[in-house]
């Protein structure tokens, strides 16, 4: 009993430390974004919205935000579509070379980001697509589609195998069964995969930095500001990015979890 409790508190403590290490820099960045002093020192200066006003008036930041939103929305749409179609082909069909097919799809996250970024840069330069918004979308889609596929595949694996056949049996052809049964069943996974891929793309720096050219995304702009000088407006942008990503991730989690909960009750 006693060692068990000790272990439990030790693990809680460990978990707590992990959270502190992850979130304290972010928390401080948020705090300093409202600090009137130019340098992040303690004691803090007065409260100010100056840095937010600065970025609000900075056309570069606006431009980057617009690019980032466009990219992450397009990436989320394409990656979720690809993820769904791949997961469904895996679920529905048996074919030769299927392990190869799945390995190919799951490959991108195993490649180091820098290597992938360099490879993308070289490739896009070669085919004359470098520095375009379009190329960032392609690169990010390659990076995020595996996540979408994994989430939707998990959902499909929870589906009663008779469900699709039941739709056929009731007069739905394959296409209508897909639209009326498979997609509604996967909706929570589709929504959460959309949010997650959007969040990953919105945050992603390495690839974007290599191939964005003049169409900078938010993370690229942040780096440029940081390298130029020490400026608390970075904290303000950071807070904004953090808020966006967190919102997307939390939506994704909530959608997935509430659905699982109702289904668990349903099995009792």
């Amino acid at each position, binding site marked *: 009993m006693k060692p068990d409790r000790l272990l439990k508190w030790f693990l809680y403590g460990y978990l707590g430390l992990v959270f502190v290490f992850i979130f304290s820099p972010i928390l401080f960045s948020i705090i300093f974004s409202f600090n009137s002093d130019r340098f992040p020192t303690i004691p803090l200066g007065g409260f100010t919205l100056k840095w937010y006003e600065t970025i609000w008036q900075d056309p570069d930041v606006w431009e980057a935000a617009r690019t980032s939103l466009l990219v992450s929305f397009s990436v989320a749409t394409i990656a979720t579509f690809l993820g769904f179609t791949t997961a469904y082909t895996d679920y529905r069909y048996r074919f030769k070379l299927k392990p190869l097919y799945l390995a190919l799809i799951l490959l991108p996250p195993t490649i180091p980001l820098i290597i992938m970024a360099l490879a993308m840069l070289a490739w896009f330069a070669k085919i004359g697509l470098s520095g375009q918004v379009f190329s960032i979308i392609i690169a990010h889609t390659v990076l995020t589609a595996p996540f979408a596929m994994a989430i939707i595949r998990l959902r499909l694996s929870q589906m*009663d195998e*008779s*469900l699709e*056949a*039941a*739709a*056929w*049996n*009731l*007069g*739905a*052809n*394959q296409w*209508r*069964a897909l639209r*009326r*049964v498979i997609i*509604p*069943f996967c*909706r929570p996974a589709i929504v959460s995969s959309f949010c997650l891929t959007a969040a990953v793309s919105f945050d992603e720096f390495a690839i974007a930095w290599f191939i964005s050219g003049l169409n900078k995304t938010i993370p690229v702009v942040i780096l440029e500001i940081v390298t130029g000088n020490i400026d608390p407006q970075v904290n303000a942008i950071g807070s904004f990015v953090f808020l966006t990503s967190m919102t997307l991730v939390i939506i994704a989690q909530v959608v997935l979890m509430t659905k699982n909960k*109702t*289904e668990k*009750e*349903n099995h009792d």
Partner: protein
Amino acid sequence: MTDSLVEFDSVVKKFGDFTAVERMNFTIDEGEFVAIMGPSGCGKTTTLRMLAGLEQPSEGEVRMQGRVMNAVPAHERDTPLVWQSLALFPFLNARENVEFGLQMRGVDAATRRKRALDWLDRLEIGEFAERDISSLSGGQKQRVALARSLVTEPKILLLDEPLSALDANLVIRMQSMLTRLQRELGITFVYVTHSQSEAFAMADRVVIMSRGRIAQIGTPKDIYRAPDNRFVAEFVGRNNIISGKIKSSSGKSVLINGSLGDFKVSLGGRAKPSPGDEGSFVIAADLVHLSSKKPRAGNQIECSLISEEFIGSVVTLFLEARDGSEFKVQIQERELADMDLKHTGKVFVSWDPERAHYIGAD
């Protein structure tokens, strides 16, 4: 033959090297309640899935009303199936589930709604029409699944072990509901089950399958009293099977010599065994007479009592004969109480040769 609805003509179904269904020939009449029964893996569900178009026969033809159905895809058939898992759509409520088939057939929203509600009412779950599937009980879900299949007014309804998830009380109630429904609608029910009690309680005809083949087709009573072969006799249960060599044959009856002596068995008509052949016969546990004193003559075996199984008014006694073979006897609990077997230990079982049923060697 004229009003047969479904015909299986030399149907074979293979999955790779595995033959799930082997040369199946049988017909199902309009308005008939047919149960397909057998142990798991015998091919009964595959047979049902071929009817629904979810599997294509590897050889032979499946015909419905004379039309060859082999190449007709599932969604173009009118063969609704009640699934073992029910397969209700969890993201739709009860009424929307029932409407699904009508919607696929292009019925307009108002008519769809009315017909769905009518069916839910008919199955006594009208008040749950707008409820989520997850909030319904097992029996209510069962009724939604039935309504969903019947709302399109099919000629045939396929059922794949639909009651296997319900508790015993509910099974009895659902059985009588299904039988009543089938009589009222006058449509064909094809019911796959591994449960003998379900098949015998509801079906007009029972098809017993074993390893992809039909072991016997007949009324529940035929199957119970006159099994065609050893598999059926054992599968139905509570049967004693005795084998031996045919000693003599009179055309009407044979004398079988087994390790427990000679037994006279009447012949039903089909089998014509000749002396020297191997042969077996079945004597049902409830047709055996039990006594503590040796009967004067006739078929009899001396046994000792091993155990008894009490299931209410009827008791099954498990006896052991001289050669170690088991013998089952089913008698009324009241009768057993009068006999006081515990003291004697030895008992004699005997039976009328007319009651024994001859089966071939196999």
